[in-house]
């Protein structure tokens, strides 16, 4: 902790995140209006934001190198949790992904899996960066992430599995993976697509099929269609906060999570939605900057992996709200309702801050 320096803490990044998260709480408040069962959600999100900020500062205070030493025990711990979830986890929307920890905080091990993967792969590749051109190193890297990926995919939690894959890909890429391996990876992924298809759960297949042919299942297409109508009817300035007919009359489902972007675009229009996207862009840009300026390869790879997650989830969630991508059930970073997502995101940011505070 010798070179710890709070003046190197990225306060602009923090400001952007706090603003975006508070904006999220406000939009969740609009989204859950008229639904007594969800009435407490904005407050809970605000609570998670506060807890998350505290977690972020705590995480930032720790030297991320310290964390590196804990990589193996943490990795094993996460694997164990994922295995337990398969046995006792609660069923939510078909995914066995939640454990109610001490009955207080529902913990989603798949969130921890994202951190564990970044630590393990980042740590290994940082050590072996000189030999990244060797097949042995690439294969070992893949073997390291295989169990964690497999357990998440088997839950089945398709969304998180893809996020993990993207995270790993970003880390490999920044670690200097040779172009030939990248091509080989793409070819392999294409070849294994039928296998992946067979592993998908019914509702996940439906989502993809609907994306390809929206008319196949009018009932399921309804959600996507309503999100599109919500976004499209927003216009330049939107219908006004709390005035979105698509959201307030509940034509949009899961408004506070999956389709929060549609609520924003409908009620605040092009201006509001673009400002929100710009804020997210700024956050991601600052994170790339942190990765680029990291003191060592481990820090760079760690931040790269976590930033890739944020970028990818933004793309997927916003894209699906606008009919560009299939519905996955992922949260929009900092905006969608969800305590777990908020807490883990804040830990990500804490790690990034820890890296930037300890740059040369």
């Amino acid at each position, binding site marked *: 902790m010798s070179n710890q320096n709070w003046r190197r803490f990225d306060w602009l990044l923090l400001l952007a995140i706090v603003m975006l998260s508070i904006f999220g709480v406000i939009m969740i408040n609009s989204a859950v209006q008229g639904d007594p*069962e969800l009435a407490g959600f904005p407050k809970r999100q605000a609570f998670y934001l506060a807890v998350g900020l505290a977690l972020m500062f705590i995480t930032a205070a720790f030297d991320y190198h310290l964390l590196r030493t804990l990589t193996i025990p943490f990795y094993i711990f996460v694997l164990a949790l994922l295995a337990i979830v398969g046995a006792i986890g609660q069923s939510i929307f078909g995914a066995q992904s939640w454990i109610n920890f001490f009955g207080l905080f529902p913990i989603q091990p798949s969130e921890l899996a994202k951190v564990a993967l970044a630590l393990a792969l980042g740590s290994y590749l940082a050590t072996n960066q000189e030999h990244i051109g060797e097949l042995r190193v690439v294969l070992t890297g893949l073997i390291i992430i295989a169990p964690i990926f497999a357990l998440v995919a088997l839950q089945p939690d398709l969304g998180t599995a893809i996020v993990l894959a993207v995270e790993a890909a970003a880390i490999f890429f920044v670690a200097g993976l040779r172009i030939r391996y990248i091509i080989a990876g793409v070819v392999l992924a294409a070849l294994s697509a039928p296998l992946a298809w067979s592993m998908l759960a019914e509702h996940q297949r439906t989502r993809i099929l609907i994306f390809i042919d929206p008319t196949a299942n009018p009932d399921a297409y309804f959600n996507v269609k309503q999100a599109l109508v919500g*976004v499209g009817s927003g*216009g330049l300035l939107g219908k006004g906060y709390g005035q979105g007919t698509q959201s307030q009359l509940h034509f949009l489902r899961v408004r506070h999570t999956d389709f929060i972007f549609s609520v924003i*675009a409908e009620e605040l229009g092009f201006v509001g939605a673009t400002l929100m996207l710009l804020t997210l862009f700024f956050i991601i840009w600052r994170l790339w900057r942190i990765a680029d300026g990291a003191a060592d390869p481990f820090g*760079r790879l760690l931040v790269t992996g976590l930033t890739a997650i944020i970028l990818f989830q933004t793309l997927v969630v916003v894209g699906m709200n606008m009919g560009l991508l299939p519905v996955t059930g992922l949260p929009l970073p900092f905006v969608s309702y969800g305590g777990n997502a908020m807490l883990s995101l804040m830990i990500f940011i804490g790690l990034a801050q820890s890296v930037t505070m300890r740059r040369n």
Partner: protein
Amino acid sequence: MTTQRHAFFSRMWTLRIITVIIFLILVGQLARLQFLQGVGFQKEAVVNRVRIVRKKAPRGVIYDRDGRILARNTASYAIAIIPAELPDDPDYEVSEQKRQAIYQAVYDITHEKLARHQDIPKGPTPTPDLTETHLILDVSQPPEPTVLTVDAMADLVAQRELGSAFLPVIVAKNLPREVALQVQEETYRLPGVQMQLISRREYPSGLYTSHIIGYMGPIPEEKEKDYAKKGYAPDAWVGWSDLEYQYEDELHGQPGVRVIEVDVKGREKNVVGEPTEPQPGHNLILSLDLELQKIMFDALTAGVNPKRSNSAAAVAIDPRTGYVLGMVSLPTYDNNIFADGVTPDEYKALSEAPGFPLLDHAISGIYPPGSTFKLVTAAAGLQEKVITRKTILNAPGIIYLPNRNFPDDPDLAQPFVCWIHKSGGEHGDINVTAAIAESCDIFFYKVGGGFPPTDFEGLGVQALADYAQLFGFGEHSGIDLPGENPGLVPDPKWKRLAKGERWVTGDTYNMAIGQGDVLATPLQVSMMTAAVANDGILYQPQVVVAATDYKNHLIKFNHPIVRREIPVDSKNFDIVREGMWMVVNWEYGTAKEVALPDVEVAGKTGTAEFFDPEIGRDLAGNLPSHAWFTAYAPYDDPEIVVTVFVYNGGEGSMVAAPIAQEILRGYFDIKARDEAAGSHSLLDQLEAIAP
């Protein structure tokens, strides 16, 4: 730092560029949706949330001239499910289970109550035999109660939920009232289950008046837009035929409209604007006398031999007004079968059944008018001074019309025979009244086409055609019923265009006795007779005389409409009427058997030959003939015209005249009874207050 740097830019910068591209795509798509496609999505958002809820207006009631109900609304009982009120659990499985239980309960309870209600199990429903010739086609039966299966309920509810979840889904209908009430009692705990009263059109006089009243059905696909413009709900029913169709606008009323904002479940959230209350439709009062209509129906049914005739019609008109007193067409059908909707197959079977029961032969059927047309020839001949009352023409049983090009060659002359010639007789020297009374063909051949051998000049085709038109032939009578056929008055131009042949004197001969190509509806023949009876006023026939609003305030009274005053002198009509009087009251009259004891009747018989490939000629080579009789009474002060037409009936005097006699007898019996009782019809009362 051991970062591996690329020649141009680092991999970190690659990720930054990817990030920029991703955000550009997202903002670009946002702009595309909100600006380029914005208007469309804004419309969709409005369609999503705004619903127009219509409350049906009660349809107008149709009464006869005495206030007897011919069409009314009755209730049928149904059980409905309102999707928006069904249990809705966040867990799909749970809410499906709860709903299934409700569907099952509705199904079981309704079936149980129905079974208890109908202790005796029903046999197979008799299907009407449409292959035989039925003059009366009665396929009506009390509507069968129907209950949907549990799966069908679930399907319908799921469909409705995507659209208007607040609209009830009918799951059991046509329930007896007691059954509906019992089901309601037992299902009051079940959310979303409701008993519904469904308005149903009922025609108490059924097959007696089906060709006047008509029937209703769902909005035809091709007219969806028109009716939507008028504010009709998509599931509204509209008149399909006859008065139900003709007076749709008056009968329908205005549905009450509420514009509401709904949520995704179809639950009402807000009312937009001022709701309006339904405005009931107007009631119609007809000139028709149901009692007379039944007499006409019975007389026609009894007088027609169904083995010979596949159709027949009778029309009764008030010659002083043109109002229709009765109008019957056989075969008929019970319009009540349409109350619950018919399947396309049922409709097809009915519309294609022998004699075409759905067709009103009185206004849509066109036939050669035969000798009834001689009234026109007589009036025209008198008015054009071709003949006078005293003109006597020689009428042998057969005359020979010389060939136009070889007038001196008797071998080329064309023979024209009189009906009487078949029995070897002849009319001899005869004047116009006797010619009408005896229905002498030769006399009218000569009046129509002249007779060159004696240098007698006839009317000629143009004058004859002109008078036919003046009497209303070849044009719509303008009756307030749909589907009227104008018939045909041929002339040289028509023949050239339609047949590519030159008009010859023989054609004029045939036309003069209502044969050849002249075609008329029984209604047109009636209006002609009415014009003769009333001294030359051709009225526009009317069925509906008055309309009242739902509070029974008179809002419209249709006074008689004069189409034209026929330019024939009264003294000439006197002569024609005298001939008609002789038809019934002279010892040589063709219909002297149908005189009534107390009322002087005047009429004209008609036996109109026609060609039908299915019937062909008889053994003697004669064509089959339609039987006609058109009459008015009383002779000195006409108040009713009756025309009877029997398809392939044979002799008008033998078949049609006795039916007309029955109808006239019935009319005057009713009149005598009502006058004795001093009662006045509803129509008389309305006329008294009409502006």
